[in-house]
């Protein structure tokens, strides 16, 4: 029986060596600018699009000068990103760009990283209430404009009158909640929308199945529903799918924030007349230039400006945010194909 034991250990060790050796292709090269991008979770097409922006910029500035690592947790729990931030610091990264899963869970980790001299940048969002724990935040667009833009788009599509509902992400999602508040404000005091009534806000938790069920429930609950705003990529795709399957495109207009590649099918067949978003690749592209500038001595204080290649000059606002876009872009039948290929 003992001989069997030693055989077991040797075999297991051997297997492990091959596994780790095989996979760990990345080795620490000196002199390169090491950029880490940690998404909310792997397998999320939105962050794939953002990552493609990083790669475009690196291609422009010279592949050999950069080492770009796009890695992150499999699931989007509040604490699953801590390990990856610490690993990046351990591999002495030059800049960490992260789409945080929680506003305050990572504060401690960010502080440790910045003490170790590794700058922390939020990307695609900010962490309201914990801004002091990060160096800067690349915002996709001026969030204050999103609320107005979304409600205006909805109004145009349903002729400024009738019932409409909102299919949001999780009840606690900070961005969506700020946009919904803005929408309600506009609805209340801008009398152009007086004939429109917001019947209900439902939450699909950014899960496809739940969003589908919530959308189906909306349709059954409100027989004369005219429109649905879904300010989240998972929500809008699920809503369009339900409308497309039930052939209700003419009756119920769906809009919101969506990914061109996901929405191409619905725009092409008329289920969705148009939706808004910003340009995730811009954020990635801009991030690389920011990291390069900082490596070259640029200080990220409010008011400082830096150039970002083909996207031009960017200035850092008072609250340490950088707006990659001011107004959201409209994606419709005219430009969906071009952008669907990009992201």
């Amino acid at each position, binding site marked *: 029986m003992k001989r069997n034991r030693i055989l077991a250990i040797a075999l297991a060790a051997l297997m492990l060596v091959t596994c780790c050796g095989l996979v760990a292709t990345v080795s620490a090269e000196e002199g390169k600018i090491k950029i880490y991008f940690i998404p909310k*979770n792997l397998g999320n097409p939105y962050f794939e699009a953002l990552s493609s922006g990083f790669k475009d910029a690196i291609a422009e500035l010279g592949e050999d000068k950069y080492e770009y690592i796009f890695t992150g947790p499999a699931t989007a729990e509040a604490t699953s990103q801590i390990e990856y931030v610490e690993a990046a610091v351990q591999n002495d990264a030059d800049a960490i760009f992260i789409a945080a899963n929680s506003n305050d869970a990572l504060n401690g980790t960010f502080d440790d990283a910045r003490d170790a001299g590794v700058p922390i940048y939020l990307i695609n969002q900010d962490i309201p209430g914990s801004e002091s724990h990060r160096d800067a935040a690349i915002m996709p667009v001026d969030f204050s404009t999103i609320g107005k833009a979304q409600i205006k788009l909805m109004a145009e599509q349903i002729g400024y009158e009738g019932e409409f509902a909102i299919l949001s992400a999780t009840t606690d999602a900070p961005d969506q909640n700020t946009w919904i508040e803005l929408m309600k404000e506009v609805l209340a005091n801008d009398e152009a929308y007086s004939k429109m009534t917001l019947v209900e806000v439902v939450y699909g938790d950014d899960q496809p*199945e739940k969003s*589908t*069920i919530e959308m189906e429930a909306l349709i*059954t609950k409100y027989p004369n529903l005219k429109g649905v705003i879904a300010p989240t990529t998972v929500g809008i795709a699920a809503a369009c799918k339900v409308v497309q399957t039930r052939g209700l495109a003419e009756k119920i207009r769906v809009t919101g924030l969506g990914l061109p590649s*996901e929405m191409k*099918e619905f725009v092409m067949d008329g289920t969705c007349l148009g939706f808004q978003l910003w340009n995730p690749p811009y954020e990635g592209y801009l991030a690389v230039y920011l990291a390069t500038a900082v490596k070259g001595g640029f200080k990220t204080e409010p008011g400082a400006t830096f150039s970002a290649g083909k996207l031009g000059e960017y200035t850092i606002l008072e609250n340490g945010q950088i707006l990659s876009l001011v107004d959201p872009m409209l994606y419709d039948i005219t430009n969906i194909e071009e952008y*669907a290929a990009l992201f």
Partner: protein
Amino acid sequence: MKEARRFVTQNVKEFVTLAFILLIYLVAGVLRPEVLSGGRMAGVVNSVLLWTPLNLTMALGMMMVVIMRGIDLSIGSNVALSAMVAGILFRDHGASLWQGIVVAVAVGAACGMINGFLIAYLRIPPIIVTLGTMNAYRGLTFIISQGKQVTGYELPPGTTDFVAEGVRLGGVLIPWLVVISLLLALVFYLILKYTHFGREVYAVGSNREAAYLRGINCKKTEFLVFTIVGALCGITAMMSASRFGYINPSNTGKGLEFVVISATIIGGVSVNGGKGTVVGVLLGCLLLGTVNTMIANVGIPGTVQLFTYGLIIVTALLVDRIVLSLDSKRRMAQQVAGKEALR
């Protein structure tokens, strides 16, 4: 009368589940009377029907495993892997829908065979094997997809027709997906009732010693059961692609194993083997489907869903225990009566 009474006592579990379903509709009716009104009812029934196919298909396989006193935690990951392989064929090699389905079922069956070999022939407890393969298959899904998801328009045309079109029955559209899963249920009902293999599953689950004595090849039966579960995962993979309109390495099949195990237990499949009917499992799925839809429609916050699931599982276990103890008390009384006659 005796015949009817015997029919009720033998299927008391199924009647309890049916009672639960009606109870929920009753409660919903009381809370939100308008939910049960004409139009709304059709919507509710439709979403319950749309929720059922994936879980029913897998529950049929899980039923066979539980009848043989086993468990399979790897079905969620198996579905994801089969779907991803087919998805990549669709996206990169332009495979047709039917080629995709064949490949998905083949991959699913292969994964099932691995489980089956380790459990049946190497006699490793099912919980350990499927625990290991759950992580392994999910990891493999991510690796082959490199984190990218297969979006709606990359799927071949007609994928989503399974949900859009269907059979019209008394005003309510029964999507093809539901028809397919009900057909599968019928097939499994016939297999389990009329074929040698079907009855041998019950025999091995009920008393492996006696089964061996009657010449039943217990290992081959167990191996076949896990292979069939694997093939069902392939079918469910395609159903998932058709229902949600995309294949995502982290979302597809996520948490499926716990929902399916719950539906199987609620459907009256006894955990100590040898007992379980297709009708019971169908009712179990309908019950969970109703709970899901009712929560969305009656406006109960989605946060209650997890709690209700757990409560229903524990209640189903208690009902199973009560039925068992009543039955054994009856048998004890019978034996004592026999001995009494002796004095």
